[in-house]
């Protein structure tokens, strides 16, 4: 029997059955518009406010009204940065890092075209943002600093608490893209001293098409789209009530299951150490830094990531890769490149990302499949000597 082992939870996660159950009534009988004056709509608003509270709890927010629901985390990131820069119009400098998600990076590239100066703070060889460079970049012109809490490709956790403390003193707005942190590590926006924090429901067993932006009380920003009074005009448009309710339930469960993260971390460590033991050409990317408990980014040298992915796919093991061939852009991972890894290690990188639903048996199955796949691909690689069992990469040009 072929197993289906889903190890791509940083891409998206299974909707928890409890979450789906919580959502279904809002697709059926409770279809009212939360803005309506009558009972039929008004009672829906109550459930929406409960969800807002559940999300506020997950983030450690002081007030429920600090949570604004958005369509996606990409929208949340854009609203946070655009919202601040369009309020502080005379401040034309933005600080971010070289390893951000495209939702932040490509927005910053667009801002550059609009006349902004952007500082892309570099990372060390483990992928951790250089705190010193960031601190030195802050100036009177700085409108906002946007740094991710944890990286999607490597799981590496950034020093956001230190950054928050520094920026609070400097009175510079701080946005954290927390998409990969929510549900994996504890979050407290008050302790982090951030003004804005973005999350996405589908990364922690909630539905797709719903995200949230924490906006600290008193933060000055402008909306990016204009319309009705929903979300206090900060993000107008009829609310995605089933999505919001689902996100609330998912947030409640994620908070409860933080206690399981230690076990998840052990499972990831077992996967990682067994891979390193069984496959001599493998090595971990970002392994020297603190990481989210579910992620391991491993390079298999002398072979290419997409071909590994496709062979694993045929055996029912689902992962992702930083190789150029796998992406729509045909560019290799900007995160691994920013870590200054040689191209040979980037093209052969595979990301394993687990969840609280991943079992020991699933990890065992993946481990039983992987060495054979790697061996087969090494056999056909022009960079592998099949007799001597060693690989060599010609000088990178």
């Amino acid at each position, binding site marked *: 029997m072929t197993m289906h082992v889903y190890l791509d939870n940083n891409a998206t996660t299974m909707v928890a059955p409890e979450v789906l159950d919580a959502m279904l009534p809002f697709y059926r009988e409770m279809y009212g518009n939360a803005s309506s004056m009558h009972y039929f709509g008004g009672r829906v608003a109550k459930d929406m406010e409960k969800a807002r509270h559940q999300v506020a709890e997950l983030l450690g927010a002081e007030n429920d009204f600090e949570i604004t629901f958005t369509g996606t985390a990409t929208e949340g990131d854009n609203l946070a940065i655009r919202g601040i820069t369009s309020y502080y119009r005379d401040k034309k400098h933005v600080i971010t890092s070289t390893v951000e998600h495209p939702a932040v990076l490509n927005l910053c590239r667009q801002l550059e*075209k609009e006349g902004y100066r952007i500082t892309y703070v570099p990372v060390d060889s483990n992928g951790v943002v250089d705190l010193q460079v960031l601190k030195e970049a802050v100036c009177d012109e700085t409108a906002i600093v946007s740094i991710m809490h944890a990286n999607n490709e490597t799981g590496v956790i950034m020093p956001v608490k230190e950054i928050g403390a520094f920026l609070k003193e400097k009175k510079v707005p701080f946005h954290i893209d927390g998409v990969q942190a929510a549900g994996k590590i504890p979050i407290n926006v008050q302790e982090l001293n951030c003004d804005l924090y973005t999350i996405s429901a589908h990364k922690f067993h909630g539905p797709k098409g719903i995200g949230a932006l924490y906006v600290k009380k008193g933060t000055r920003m402008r909306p990016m789209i204009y319309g009705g009074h929903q979300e206090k005009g900060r993000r107008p448009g009829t609310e995605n009530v089933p999505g919001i309710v689902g996100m609330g339930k998912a947030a409640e469960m994620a908070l409860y299951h933080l206690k399981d993260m230690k076990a998840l971390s052990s499972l990831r460590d077992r996967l990682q150490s067994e891979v390193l033991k069984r496959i001599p050409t493998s090595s971990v990317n970002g392994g020297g830094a603190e990481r989210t408990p579910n992620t391991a980014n491993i390079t298999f040298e*002398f072979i*290419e990531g997409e071909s590994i992915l496709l062979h694993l796919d045929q055996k029912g093991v689902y992962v992702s890769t930083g*190789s150029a061939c*796998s992406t729509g852009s045909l560019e290799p991972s900007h995160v691994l490149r920013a870590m200054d890894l040689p191209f040979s290690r980037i093209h052969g990188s595979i990301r394993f990302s687990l969840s609280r639903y991943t079992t020991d048996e699933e990890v065992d199955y993946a481990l039983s499949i992987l060495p054979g796949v790697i061996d087969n691909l090494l056999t056909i*690689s*022009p960079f592998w000597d099949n007799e001597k069992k060693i690989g060599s990469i010609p000088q990178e040009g």
Partner: protein
Amino acid sequence: MWEYTEKVKDLYTNPVNVGKMENPDGVGHVGSVVCGDALTLYIRVKDNIITDASFETFGCGSAIASSSALTEMIKGKTVEEAEKIKNQDIVDYLGGLPNQKIHCSVMGSEALINAIADYRGEKPPVDDEHEGEIICQCMNITDVDIRKAVHEKGITNIDDMMESTGAGTVCGTCIPKIEDIIEEERGRCSIKDDRCCEEPMTNLQKIKKIEDAINSVIRPGLKRDGGDIELVDVQGDVVFVKLRGACSSCMSASMTLENFVQSELRKSVSKDIIVKHV
């Protein structure tokens, strides 16, 4: 996830003719670790017929499938017949490839060209250094290609760019990016070439040139019809003028501006000049 045909899936799962060949008659190598795919093709030739072929590939699923397909296609063919195989033939053999993966088949045909050259004792003709960042994924066109077209062919708008390079002609998603690059390159000289644009003019130089053109060509022309012209202001490429004398009340003043003044200024100052009557 890419949509691969059954033939492609079959060939990357169970590739044929894999591995290094002992004492081959020709070897062709293309690609590098940096680009993310590399292919070495080995051929054995007897009495001008390719009797055996094998390959080693560092690359994605379609790169493996393309390499394997190629070895099957050339076996039994004469060198001249094999030479005629184009990347499209590999694509057809595989029942198609996703647009973004066409370059994998190109790699195959390039390795074949190099292997045949090696067999004939010639230097490998294909050095596949592709410069720049790929902008149009459908047509595999880089920013460098687009920048070159701006400078070498004097292209200044998206429609001409699409016609000239093919960029943006399939799905069209990259059109705004292409427009940004055209905008960036206009008036600046990043690629040195004989036909490349000159250094951008300063405002003072521009005004001087406009005055020269007015005095030497435009005013004498207008005076023949009893008119005159006064330069009011220059803002960027927009030139504000006042027509005097017979021209000022003439119904065809705007025609005059458009047809005569503007075209003269475009000829002698810059092709981007726009003339406005105040």
